[in-house]
Each structure stands twice: as C-alpha cells, then as structure tokens.
C-alpha cells in the first residue's frame, strides 16, 4: 500500500496557517504525510509595487511567516511527518497544480483569504483557481477564530518572513579568477564597435559635409541618411556579438 499524501499550499499567512492546522489534523486521521508547498512568487514587479500590494494584503493575511517551515515545525509538535517543498515560480495556481501532478496527493488543502470587492477582482483567488482546475480532491479552509489558531500562530510569529530585499551573500570568490580587466576589455570593445560609427557620423557631418551630402544608391539617398539607417543594424550586430562573447566567457569559467 502506498503512503497517503496531503498537499498543503501555504504562504505563511493567517488563512494559510488555518489550512496548515487543518492539514495536520486530517493527516492524523488519514495517517498521511503532509507535503507543505511554499511558492516564492516571481512576478515582474518593482519594489514599490510589492510594498503597495503588501499593504493592501495586510488586512487579509494579517501575518507573514515562512509557510512550509512553520508547517514542518507544527507537524513535528503534533507528530505528523511534514515534507517541506519550496519553489520559485510564476503563477501560484500553476505551481500548485504542477506539484500536485508530480506527487499525486489524496487531498489538497488550501486556505481561503476571504478577499472581497476590488481586491478579489484584482488578485483573484488562488483557492478558487485550485478548486476549478485540480484533478484531486480539494479542501478549502476559512479562518475560524484566533483561539483555535493560537498554537500555530505562536510558531508562526517566531518565524517571520525576511524583508523583501536582501543582498546576495558572496563567499570565497577569488577576484583574480573573475578577470575584471578582461571583462572590462570586452565591454569597451563593444562600446567602441558602436561609438566609432556613431561619433564618426557626427564627425563626417561636421567636417566633411560634402561627403555626407553625396548621393548613393539612388532615391536621392545621401551618405548621411544611409549612415543613419545603418547605425541600427550596427547596434544590433554589436549587441548580439557581445552576448555571444559574454556567454562564452561565463562558460569558460565554469570548466
């Protein structure tokens, strides 16, 4: 007999903590393993956009914690096995469905945030998306009262989400190995390949106006205009070559 699985989707918010608690309870009854999935959403947003959204979300989510880690901690306490899973992804619903396909759970548990009005129109509901599209049974929870969530809230408060921006930590990189001078050489080569024809045009127009005004290739097209139109393909080729060299450079260092 294969082991039973519950897929819990949690972002560490209060509605998700409700789902977590429910998932653990169900796991006890079903004797199942909980797979706690936390998705780090990679949406193309700027910093201020994220902060704006955070503020708008505050009244629905109330708390922000490290979702799957909280589930694991809570599971340990309750004697339920919890498998943590974190993914970086685009659409949240798609990520949950993808993971469900992978592990084929007996039950999916998600929390409903209870968004309403504009916020619901704007952000949609992940729970609703799952219910509509999942091939597995889905259990949607709603927040009851804080008393019921007291124990798990305590854990969650101990494990808050880190702030939005954090510098990547770099350890043990040999500066020699980075060949910064060589990289700068490539950058300057690229720059010159474009700037020579660019300022060259300005020079010809300034100091050799007769050459610039000479007609070529018919249609009254003169050197200056032809040169102007040529600047664009020159730029494209330069950019593509730069990319090729930069790629090669990155690969060479890997080996």
């Amino acid at each position, binding site marked *: 007999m294969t082991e039973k699985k519950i897929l819990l989707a949690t972002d560490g918010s209060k509605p998700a903590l409700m789902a977590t608690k429910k998932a653990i309870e169900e796991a006890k009854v079903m004797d199942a393993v909980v797979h706690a999935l936390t998705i780090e*959403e*990679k*949406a*193309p947003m*700027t*910093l*201020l*956009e994220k*902060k*704006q*959204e955070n*503020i*708008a979300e505050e009244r629905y989510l109330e708390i922000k914690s490290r979702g799957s880690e909280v589930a694991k901690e809570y599971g340990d306490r309750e004697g339920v096995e919890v498998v943590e899973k974190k993914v970086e*992804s*685009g*659409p949240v*619903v*798609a990520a949950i*469905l993808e993971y469900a396909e992978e592990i084929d759970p007996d039950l999916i548990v998600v929390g409903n945030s209870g968004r309403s009005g504009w916020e619901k*129109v*704007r*952000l*949609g509901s*992940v729970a609703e*998306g799952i219910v509509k599209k999942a091939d597995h049974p889905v259990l949607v929870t709603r927040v009851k009262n804080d008393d019921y969530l007291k124990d798990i809230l305590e854990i969650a408060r101990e494990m808050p989400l880190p702030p939005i*921006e954090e*510098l*990547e930590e*770099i350890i043990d990189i040999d*500066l020699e190995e*980075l060949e*910064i001078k060589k*990289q700068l050489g490539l*950058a300057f080569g690229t720059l010159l390949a*474009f700037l020579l024809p*660019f*300022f060259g*045009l*300005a*020079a010809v*127009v*300034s100091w050799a*106006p007769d050459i*610039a*005004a000479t007609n070529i290739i*018919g*249609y*009254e097209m003169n050197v*200056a*205009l032809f040169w*102007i*139109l040529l*600047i*664009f393909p020159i*730029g*494209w080729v330069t*950019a*593509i070559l730069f*990319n090729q060299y930069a790629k090669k450079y*990155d690969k060479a260092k890997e080996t």
Partner: protein
Amino acid sequence: MNIVAISIVLILVGITIGVAWYSRRWTRTTSEFYVAGQKISWFQNALALTGDYLSAASFLGVTGAIAVLGIDRTWDAIGYFGGYIVLLALLAVPLRKVGKYTASEILTTRFRASKTVRTSAMLGSTVISSFYIVPQLVGAGALMQILLGWDYVISVLVIGVLVIGYVVMGGMRATTYNQVIQAVVLWFAMLIILILTVVIFFDYNPMNIIQQASDVVPPEVAAGMITDGAAFEGMTFYEVIEEVSDELTGVDTALTPGAFAPDWMNLFALATGLVFGTAGLPHVLKRYYTVDRPKDARTSTIGVLFAIGSFYIMAIFVGLAAMVLLYPELIGYFQAGEDSVAQNMAVPLLGDLVGGDVILGLAIGGAFCAILSTVAGLLITIGTTITHDYYMELIEPNASEKKEVFIAKLSIVATGIIAVVVALALGDQNVSYLVTLAFGMAASVFFPVLFMSVWWKGYTRQGAIATMVAGLIVSVIFVVAQLTGTPDVLGLPVLVNPALYSLPAAVATGIIVSKFTDDIGDVDRFMALAHRKEE
C-alpha cells in the same frame, strides 16, 4: 468634437489601465506553468523596458522634429537607441548582479552609507526624473489641443491632475504590464501609420518618401522665410513644396546633413548627452529590478534594442513622410504661432490624413498611453528614491510600510505639481528636445558615478560624491542657460546639450578627488558581487 477619435482614445486608455489591473490576477492564478517565469521573462522584460523608454518624446517628439527640420533631427533617434548599447556593455549585467539599481544604493553597497551620498543621489534623481516628466506633459497638452481644441494651459492642468491621481490612487501597483501593453500599442501604431502612408501616397515603396523629401525646404525654416502662408489656399502639398523651393532656391533641404546643427560642438554635445544618458536615467535602471537573472539582463536589453531600433527606423520614414504630406499645414501652424502643435503633432496629423478618425484616435490614444505609463514610471521612481533611498535611511528608518508608501505618494504629488508648472512655462518646445536635456543631465550625474563604481577599484567615496555634485552643478547651469537663452557661461558657449562639458567635468573631478582620497570602500566584496560568474 471628433467623436470617433475620442472614443478610440478612451478605449485605448481604458484597455491599458484595465489590463494592467487584471494582469496581477493573471500572474497569480493562471494555470499555465512557467518555471520561475523564466521562459518568457526576458521577452516580457524587454517589452516592459521598451514601454518605459518609448515616451511621448519618441512617438511624438522624434517624428515631429524630423517632420519640421529633416534628417538633422534623427540624432535623437539614433542617440536614444545607442544609449542602450552603452547600458548593455557597461552597466546592465553588473547592476543586476549586485541587485541594486540606483546610484545611492550602489554607492552604499560599495562604500559605507553616508548622508552626503544619499542626499546628492536623491537630488540628482529627483531633478532628472522631474525634468523628464515636463516634456511628457507638454506632449499631452498639445494632444488635447488637437483632439478637443482645449487651451494649452487647461490641457496641461487637466492631464497633470489625471496622471498624478492615477499614480497615487493605485497606478503604482501594476506598472510592469502597463509598460508591456504600451510598448506593443506604440510599435504597432507606428507600423500601421507607416504602411498606410506608403500604400496610399508613396506607391508601395518607402524609398519614395526619401526621394520626395529631398526637394523640401523644412517647414520650420520655410515658415520663417516666406511671408504669406495664406497664399497657399487651395493648393496641394505638392504644389506648395514646389512653390516654396522655387522661392527659396539654394536653401538647405530636409536631407541636407548638418543644416541645423550649427557646428561640431553642438552636434557632439547632443550625441554625447544622448548616448551616455540612457545608462544614467534612474527610471530606466530601476526597471532592471524585475529582470530575473543576470543573463536575462543581457537578453532583455538586446530585445529592447531590436524593439526601439525598428521603431526609430519607422519613425524616420514617418517623420519625412509627414513633412511632405503635411507641408502646408505645418508651415501654417508655425505662422499661426502654434509651435507646440507644429513641432509635436506630426504623427497624429499624419494618422488623420492616411486613416481618418480611426487612425487619428489610434495615434493620439497610443501617445496618451505612452505619456501615462512613462509619467507613472517616473513618478514612481521619484517616490521610491525619496522614501527608500532617503527618508527611510536618514529621517525615519523605522517607518512602517504604510508610512513609507504615504511619504512616496506625498513626494509624487509634490514633484508632479512642480512638473506641471514647468510644463506650462515650456509649452512651445519640441518634446524630444526637452527630453534630450534630461538625458544630458543623466549622462553627467549618474552614468559616470555608476560606471566608475562598478569598474574602477581605485574609486573612492569622496570621488563618487564629487562626481555626482560636479555633474549635477555643471549640467544644471548649462541647461538653465540654454533654456533662458544665455549665450555663454564663463566664456564657454552654451550648447544644445550640457553633456559635452558636464560629463568630462564629472569624470575628471571623480578621478582627481579619488587620487587624493583613500576610502575605496568594501571593494573586493563589491567587485566579486558585481562581476561574479553566473550560476
């Protein structure tokens, strides 16, 4: 009242805002999966960068300037284009690797934070971004004039209030998709107008546009030299062109190179300001925040180069075609004193000519979307800079997110009002020309300091501050001198762009001060971060 055109404008603007709202829902709840958004991220980001970049200056200003002065004004187009090559070669990838996109943050990452660094970076960023908003409002004002017949002052006031309101009320929350849609709308609007023009008037061959433009004395020149435009009453554009050329034999035509760049210094000043300006524009750099991986920073930038390059090639042909086909009208606007319309409205007027109300609506609507999203991007940049880089660091580090966003909104309203006032004063200028001045400032204030911070180990904190301060002071002095018509400052002739003086001044100051000071910051860690190999 042009009901068809107005409806199309409203629909386009409505769609842009509507889709932008809906996009956030889509990015959360669609069931199509893409790993870390990466499969489409470079393309999406390329379009978002393009949308942020193609503003009223590119859509209205570049074509408008070419339409009234000819190929000498193509410098704006190739300069805006070339700026992304400089950005690609020198800054895009290192900035993405560090994960910081403003001078303030880059300097704080490399050197320790200092009040002077933050203050000068904040001032520079605010001045440049505000100045960049002005031409957008000028363009919007001219659009309202031809769409609704409103007075310029009323137009600018109404648009200003609408845009600031839009950003403050929630436009901040969906800028990326807004930019994507806007890029697509503008690109196709330009393409459709070009195709219709070539098919209807130029015998299916765009090269005929060049041939016909070769005889034309540019409208802005002709308007000043011929006395009476009213004599053209009832004549076709072709007859008027011939009449004017006969009257003004020997005068430079639209295709004469160098006719309107008075001398090499002005030309090199403009070229320098444009090509190094992009890499210093705060709102352009900020956009790289949404690029997922360092190598996407490269591919996205290349995507931008193709999108804007093809756009500007179309703009050159459209501009020249507008000069030929709208010749009597353009001269008429100049002689009637409506310079703002003459200089900036070539695309909408041509759209009206080739496609009637529908294309007029498309052109104006496209331009409105461009203005809306670019101004939104700029205001958000200003808001972020003032709160994130300044207020939160120096005044109230423990402010809540709510407070932070409130301060951002407050600074957005304040700078928005200042921009509206300046736009009222500069209403008769070409939109693209005003933008080139912002480029010149960016090329002097932020490009040198970012470039030297990222690539030069010997650069010092004091050197960095000196670079920014020198660039800011010199460029602002020459921009003000240029706009007030001062012929020279300290014996130096005032040029069309400050960059020929201010960029070298900033670099030289930075190098000299760095030689005499020694706070090179946490240089090894910073260099490792900026130039590390990709995972």
